[in-house]
């Protein structure tokens, strides 16, 4: 047990995510968890699932999910690989239908929210040879769904087109992509592509951003930087953010709330309320330990799908 804990403290999160462990390490606030203050009655959620379930064929991905995201909130959606985090986002976008329950996005049916929703899909990287500039990809977020063809020199005579260009420049500035927005997007780094894609999702001033593992495949400094960026945007622009993550570590300090998804439902609350042995063990119906290392960091140990495999895997690992 001790060996396992030390091995995990070494920060080898990649290994953990491969075997599907909800793993989190954080500087935990020592103050006892306090229940979140109930939202005022007139504030409607940006996103609300109730009694929701998704089935693909005979396989139920998850059921009995009741979650919500309030205006301006920064919420992480967590859970092991394959539990259906991306599916939850796709339901919100109207790309996957619910088999039971209801989903409401910005007060409407999923798929109706349109311009008020920003989306960044999972694991998107552009082909190295793609000779299209970052700024063109950002522009698609503004008008890509409009029929027709962009006309040359539209900015000279169309005020609307000029306003759009100003907004594009603004979001590129906001994500700090000014240096490389004119370069072909295939040639910039993964972190830079991710920033451009966040800019793309922001162009239309959405009220809700749905980000599917935006920190995936970034190195640690970039993860921290992009996480800080998303948090800043959420605050400055007043955007609610629902962000899927497999490692909550880089975003822990920015989060208002976390949503942990399991097959039989989801739990949500503050980090302290959700990421503890009792709550996670109940959600995954298998013993899961949340441990605190001597330096105050929090370690979640356990594998909701195959607990025995997991401990075999890690007990023999050499210490660094």
């Amino acid at each position, binding site marked *: 047990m001790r060996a396992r804990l030390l091995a995990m403290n070494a920060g080898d999160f990649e290994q953990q995510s491969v075997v599907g462990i909800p793993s989190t390490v954080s500087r935990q606030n020592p103050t006892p968890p306090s229940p979140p203050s109930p939202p005022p009655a007139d504030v409607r959620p940006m996103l609300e699932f109730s009694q929701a379930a998704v089935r693909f064929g005979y396989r139920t991905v998850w059921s009995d999910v009741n979650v919500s995201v309030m205006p301006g909130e920064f919420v992480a959606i967590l859970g092991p690989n394959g539990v259906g985090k991306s599916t939850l986002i796709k339901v919100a*976008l*109207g*790309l996957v239908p619910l088999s039971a329950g209801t989903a409401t996005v910005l007060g409407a049916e999923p*798929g109706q929210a*349109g311009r008020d*929703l920003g*989306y*960044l*899909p999972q694991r*998107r990287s*552009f082909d190295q040879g*793609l*000779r*299209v*500039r970052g700024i*063109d*990809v950002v522009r*698609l*977020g503004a*008008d*890509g*769904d*409009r*029929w*027709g*063809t*962009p006309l*040359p020199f539209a900015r000279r005579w169309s005020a609307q087109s000029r306003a759009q260009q100003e907004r594009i420049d603004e979001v590129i500035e906001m994500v700090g992509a000014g240096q490389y927005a004119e*370069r*072909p997007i295939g040639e910039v780094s993964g972190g830079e592509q991710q920033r451009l894609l966040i800019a*793309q*999702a922001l162009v239309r001033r959405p009220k809700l951003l749905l980000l599917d593992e935006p920190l995936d495949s970034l190195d640690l400094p970039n993860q921290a930087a992009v996480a800080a960026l998303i948090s800043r945007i959420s605050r400055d622009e007043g955007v609610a953010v629902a962000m899927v993550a497999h490692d909550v570590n880089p975003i822990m300090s920015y989060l208002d709330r976390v949503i942990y998804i399991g097959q039989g439902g989801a739990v949500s609350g503050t980090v302290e309320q959700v990421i503890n042995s009792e709550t996670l063990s109940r959600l995954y119906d298998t013993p899961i330990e949340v441990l605190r290392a001597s330096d105050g960091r929090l370690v979640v140990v356990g594998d909701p799908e195959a607990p025995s495999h997991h401990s075999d895997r890690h007990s023999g690992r050499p210490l660094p």
Partner: protein
Amino acid sequence: MIAVVAATVREGLGWNLVDDMRQLFELHFMVNAFRAGTIVAVVAGAMGWFTVLRRQSFAGHALAVVSFPGAAGAVWLGASATAGTFVASVSAALVIALVPRSASGGGDGEDSAVIGTVQALALASGVLFVSLYGGFLNSLNGLLFGTFLGITDDQVTTLIIVGAAVLAVLAGIGRPLFFATIDADVAQASGVPVRMLSVVFLVLLGCAAAEVSQITGSLLVFALLVLPAASAQRLTSRPGSSFVLTIVLAVAITWVALAAAYFSVHPIGFFVTTIGLGVFVVVTVAQSAKVRIQRRGRSGFTSQGLAA
């Protein structure tokens, strides 16, 4: 007809360029060749730009190959070869579009097994039609490798009508098609009908491939469809500029190839292909040289920054 043409053609290339140009446009068949070539080049450029971005060049090639059995079958049945090419290429486009894609391929990945099969079947049935018709080998060369001789006024009219229709539809779907090409997931989430656009695009590609095959022959369509777009996209990453440049290159390549074919004994398909390839090679070499220079500049900058 061909014999008369051949007799008039071989006056040879003189030193007076103006005189040569005049000579080129004196003959009605040559005027028609330039008209047809220009229409075809514009359509090939516009469609090719998207084809290269979408990585569907292989599908474009297959659809062009299908125009061969289309023409051969039409001639065998006593119908118009031009009509045959369009019917065949558009039908093949629908087959490729409607066969479900392998799950791993995602949105716009080509299903090379389906496309390859369509192509093989096309060549096989083309050969069958030729042998069924018998004694038709003269135009076999033209069908496969291109010809600019004997393009009729009717053919030019057909090319204009179909070409204008293709360009009109393309103009209507241009922006969402670009979105779906670059970023299918987000496009779909924003309400762009990605699947429908990909079917429409393949049908347009079928029309374009059939048009281009009238000039380059069905086996060499690739040259005019893919090479100008690939070259232009290397030269600039601005979508508007590379789109216009693609069309300019396609038209220029076609004109030079037509002139070269007129003053020589070799088929036009050869000239289109070699000139197109020449442009592509020059652009690629120039671009990689530029990248190397930039990289050297950038690493110099970094070491300075570190030293400071």
